[in-house]
C-alpha cells in the first residue's frame, strides 16, 4: 500500500521547512510536530536532523519515539553502525543514510544494514539536474555538485544491503512546483527497491500521480506542515477515510 509521509526537518531543537535547502518556515518544536502527525495517523514520519547527533538530540528522539504510534524514520548525523543501533534502540523503525561518496558512504551503509537489518536501512540521494539535462548527486553538506551520476548511484545502492531508497529533488525542494516526474520515473526504472520520493510535492494530485508511477512513499515537508500562500505553520494530513478511498 502506498504511503504519504510528512517530513520533520530539524536543527538545534527547531523544526522548519526549506526551499532549495535553505530555511523557509519555522515550525516550532520537532517532537510536538511528530506527536501531531502521529495523532493524525500519518503512514510514517520522516525526521531529518541537520545538526549533530548529541545527547540533547537523543533526548528529543526518545521523546519523539514515546509520542508516536506510527512508524518513524530518522536521518542525519548517523556516522556508524553503533549510532544507528542506538537510534533503532529508541524505537525508530528506519535509519536514513545519505550517499554522497561511493568510497566513504557505501561501506557505511553496508555495515549499518548488517547491524540493524536491511529493512531498517534507508539510503537516500539528493539529486540536481546539470546544464546538459543529466541528473547528478548533490552534496548538501558542502553545497556542491558531485561527479556521481544518477544511474551509477542507484546501481551502487542496489547492492548495498539497504532495504529502501529515497530520492530528493534539490531543484524542487520546497518549491511547490510539483514533483520532478522525470527524475522519479528514472529512479523507478533503475531499482526494484521500495522507493521514496521527496521534492516539490504540492497537492494530493501530485501524490496520487507519483503513486501511480510506482513510487511507494511520497515524503513532503511543506505540503503537510504549512498552509496557504504565506506558508503558515500548520500540520495537517488527509483524513483516514479519504486515504482509505485512495488506497482502494
Amino acid at each position: 500500500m502506498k504511503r504519504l509521509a510528512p517530513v520533520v526537518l530539524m536543527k538545534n531543537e527547531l523544526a522548519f521547512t526549506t526551499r532549495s535547502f535553505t530555511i523557509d518556515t519555522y515550525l516550532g518544536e520537532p517532537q510536538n510536530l511528530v506527536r501531531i502527525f502521529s495523532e493524525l495517523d500519518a503512514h510514517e514520519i520522516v525526521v531529518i536532523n541537520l545538526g549533530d547527533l548529541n545527547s540533547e538530540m537523543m533526548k528529543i528522539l526518545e521523546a519523539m519515539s514515546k509520542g508516536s504510534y506510527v512508524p518513524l524514520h530518522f536521518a542525519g548525523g548517523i556516522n556508524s553502525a553503533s549510532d544507528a543501533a542506538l537510534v533503532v534502540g529508541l524505537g525508530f523503525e528506519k535509519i536514513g543514510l545519505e550517499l554522497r561518496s561511493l568510497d566513504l558512504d557505501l561501506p557505511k551503509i553496508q555495515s549499518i544494514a548488517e547491524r540493524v537489518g536491511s529493512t531498517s536501512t534507508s539510503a537516500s540521494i539528493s539529486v540536481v539536474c546539470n546544464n546538459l539535462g543529466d541528473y547528478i548527486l548533490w552534496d548538501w553538506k558542502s553545497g556542491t555538485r558531485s561527479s556521481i551520476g544518477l544511474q551509477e548511484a542507484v546501481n551502487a545502492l542496489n547492492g548495498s544491503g539497504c532495504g529502501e531508497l529515497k530520492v530528493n529533488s534539490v531543484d524542487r525542494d520546497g518549491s511547490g512546483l510539483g514533483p520532478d516526474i522525470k527524475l522519479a520515473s528514472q529512479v523507478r526504472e533503475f531499482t526494484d527497491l521500495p522507493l521514496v520520493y521527496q521534492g516539490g510535492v504540492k497537492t494530493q494530485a501530485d501524490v496520487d500521480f507519483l503513486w501511480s508511477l510506482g513510487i511507494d512513499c511520497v515524503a513532503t515537508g511543506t505540503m503537510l506542515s504549512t498552509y496557504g500562500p504565506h506558508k503558515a505553520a500548520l500540520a495537517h494530513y488527509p483524513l483516514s477515510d479519504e486515504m482509505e478511498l485512495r488506497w482502494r
Partner: protein
Amino acid sequence: MNRVTIIDAGIGNLPSLVSAFNRLDLECKVVSKPEDLKTTMLTVFPGVGHWGQATSRLLESGWSNAIQEYVQRGGNLLGICLGMQLLGRTSEEAEGLGLGLLPMSTELNEAHGTRVENLGWNRVHSPEWSAHDWLGVENGRAFYFTHKYSVSPLNPQQSKLLSTDFPGVIAAVQLDNVIGVQFHPERSGKSGLDLLAKVVEWAEA
C-alpha cells in the same frame, strides 16, 4: 498483579510498545530477567533483528526456558515481529532453535514469490475457512509491517490466522494461549492500538 508484562530480552524495541500500552491506560511492567517472568494476564515478547543472534541470546540468558514454562503454565503470550517468528522452531535466516510454541517455520519472503523486503502498510484478511474475524479485526484493516522473513504455519487450518495483501505473508497466528503478529501494532496508529486493546480483552477473558 501487573496486567501486561513486556519481555526485555535485549532483542526488541521497548519504548514504543510501553508507550502504546500506556496510551491504553494499561499498567505495564518490563522484565529483563527470566526469573522475574511471573504470572501475569498478558506477556508481550517483542523482537527485531537477526534470528541467529536472537536464538543464541534467548538460550544463553535462560529466556527460552522461562517463556516456554510460562506458556505451559497457561500464560497468555503475544509475540511481535521477530518475536512472532521465534515462537516457531526454525528459520531460513540462520541456525538456532526457536521456542517451538507454534508449529511453523520462518522463510525468506522471496520464497513466497514476492520481493524480499516488506516495508509499509498491508491490509489483513481472515482466511476463507474462518467463520469469525480474528480478535474482531475487520477484514481489510491496515497494519504496519517491516520484515524480510515471514512465518509459514505447518498446518494452517489448525491455527487461527490472518493473511495479508502482500502475497504469502501471514500477518497473525494464534494457537490456544499463544498469539504472534508479524506487523507492529505499536506503530500501526489507531488500528494497532485497537488490536492491542483486543488482545488485552482476550487475555482477560
